[in-house]
């Protein structure tokens, strides 16, 4: 057999080396390209929401600069005249909008905190917001779970949906907290 790097033994040596050397992995078996945050089955083109070569998710809609008349842009002087952002003054609909549209941003966390304050709870497994249906006490209640009718926020249809559900307390997220060292933003 070929006894240098250009035969089967050479390939085998490289494969075995890659099993131990993490630096080689990128090249030897290569990378699972479906894990790079691009929806390769998307019917739409990808480039128009491509965020960055280092980002593992596409742009959020609000990140994409679109050419609009300059009057539409919030000028730094108008900014001072606009009401400050106070989530406790907004309806649930807007809170859910801010939560779902600002992944990876402090706004998502702030919306989660405000929803928690209004007795919504985030189900970590089903990844939905849930709250008690008013006047509907749980039919079963133990110290680890309860069963009853609850309201879910159904994001796809963007409305509250009532559902029978067995609710395990440990699957609910505790009170979320805003990061202490908020990246202070002079414009906010």
């Amino acid at each position, binding site marked *: 057999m*070929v006894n240098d790097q*250009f035969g*089967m033994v050479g390939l085998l040596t490289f494969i075995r080396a890659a099993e131990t050397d993490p630096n080689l992995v990128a090249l030897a078996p290569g990378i699972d390209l479906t894990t790079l945050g691009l929806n*390769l089955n998307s019917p739409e083109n990808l480039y128009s929401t491509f965020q960055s*070569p280092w980002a593992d998710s596409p742009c959020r809609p609000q990140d994409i600069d679109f050419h609009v008349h300059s009057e539409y842009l919030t000028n730094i002087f108008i900014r001072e005249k606009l009401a400050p952002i106070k989530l406790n003054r907004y309806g649930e609909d807007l809170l859910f909008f801010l939560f779902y549209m600002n992944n990876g941003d402090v706004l998502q966390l702030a919306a989660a905190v405000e929803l928690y304050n209004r007795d919504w709870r985030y189900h970590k497994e089903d990844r939905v917001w849930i709250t008690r249906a008013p006047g509907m006490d749980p039919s079963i209640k133990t110290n680890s779970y309860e069963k009853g009718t609850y309201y879910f926020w159904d994001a796809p249809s963007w409305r509250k949906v009532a559902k029978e559900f067995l609710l395990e307390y440990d699957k609910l997220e505790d009170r979320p907290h805003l990061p202490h060292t908020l990246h202070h933003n002079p414009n906010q």
Partner: protein
Amino acid sequence: FDDPPGLHEKTEFLLREWVNMYHSPAAGRDSTKAFSMFVGQMHQQGILKTDDLITRFFRLSTEMCVDLCYRALNEQTHSPTLIRAKCFHTLDAFVRLISLLVKHSGDSTNSVTKINLLNKVLGIVAGVLLQDHEVRNTEFQQLPYHRIFIMLFIELNAPEQVLDGINFQILTAFCNTFHILRPRKAPGFAYAWLELISHRVFIGRMLAITPQQRGWGMYAQLLIDLIKFLSPFLRNADLTKAAQLLYKGTLRVLLVLLHDFPEFLCDYHYLFCDVIPPNCIQMRNLILSAFPRNMRLPDPFTPNLKVDMLSDITHPPRIVTNFTNMIQPASFKKDLDSYLKSRAPVTFLSDLRSNLQVSNEPGTRYSIPLINALVLYVGTQAITYIHSKGQTPSMSTIAHSSHMDIFQNLAVDLDTEGRYLFLNAIANQLRYPNSHTHYFSCTLLYLFAEANTEAIQEQITRVLLERLIVNRPHPWGLLITFIELIKNPSFNFWNHEFVHCAPEIHKLFESVARSCT
């Protein structure tokens, strides 16, 4: 050098003045009111008097903007968001001034003065960057330059009438600048550079909006600049964290191109294969897997797939690169043509190996672009020759020809490195259904069948297997060739010692065979 006395102070005064005017409520729509007042001030200060003064003004302004950013970046107490807001407060104003000067220089129909000014300013910013990069070395920061380039590009690609007639020249100006700033020239700017050339507005302009695909060649050149920079680190397969991030970012960009512009990758795959190191298999597979969007690929695992019956298999792929030019020197090309035509001079075959060897390329003894071009040239000549006899490529029609003499001579005469590169050049043509895929698939199988030593068969298997065991995607032509090799008993594949040389290898073949059956 030799800035006229007082120019530095004048420039600082004017820049500060402009930044305040840009951010003032009276700036007006797109800062046009502020601009008309400010141009008056520039005149008053004599800045617009000569080309030389304008050049000095832009250089000094760029340096002042950059210095301001370095000071902000060195403020440890501030958060990244605050630092950026401070830097962009000035940089965005400076960009607006540049874009307004470009749009309003010369009368509205005079595109030459506009483009000349844009090229000048881009050249100045690039010059300041390269000098800064050299002086500050590992303290260099990409932030101010990245912001200037991307915001200027976005401003000059806004849908405005004054820009409509010069979009392509604007694109060309930016491509030239990015080529000047390619990673091998400014490695400290490489991440920002890849951000810039993969920005959605830039890709949109270069590959989608510009008519007749006039941006494709320039974009291919930028990708080649990037791959050439990564090449030494990829070839060594030893990627530091920083290089891995750049490599992964490159794969993301190539994936976007594979999904949105596969025809672009189809057209330029020849150039990319010349610069991608042979062991960088997944990136090369990604490019070779591209196929025209209007084409439907038959499942390569279809039992008894009749490849030569496919409608697309007789059509040659589009070739936009002049690979024939790669076959140098001219005397070698002349002997090659002569041999193809009349199998003379006979010495051509024995001289072949030395013609393919180079001494100046680090990491290899052969000229990969020359081997790739030779294989492609001989193959395309062979296809033409076979079609001229009213035949189509098959194991019988490709045999006993001057073309196959050359391929068989290369298979026999080259050393293991040369043969590996030669077989790679053939495997690089195994793509979507087209006449090249068909011919080179037959050629690889023919060389396997006619091999006079098992080493040739082993290396053919190695070249195919290493392309199959990496993560997806896998080119269609590669799959159908390998399936034929392991299924067709005439190749006697399973009886070779190298198939059973190690448990992992045997298992790999068996798993591929299972997915084939």
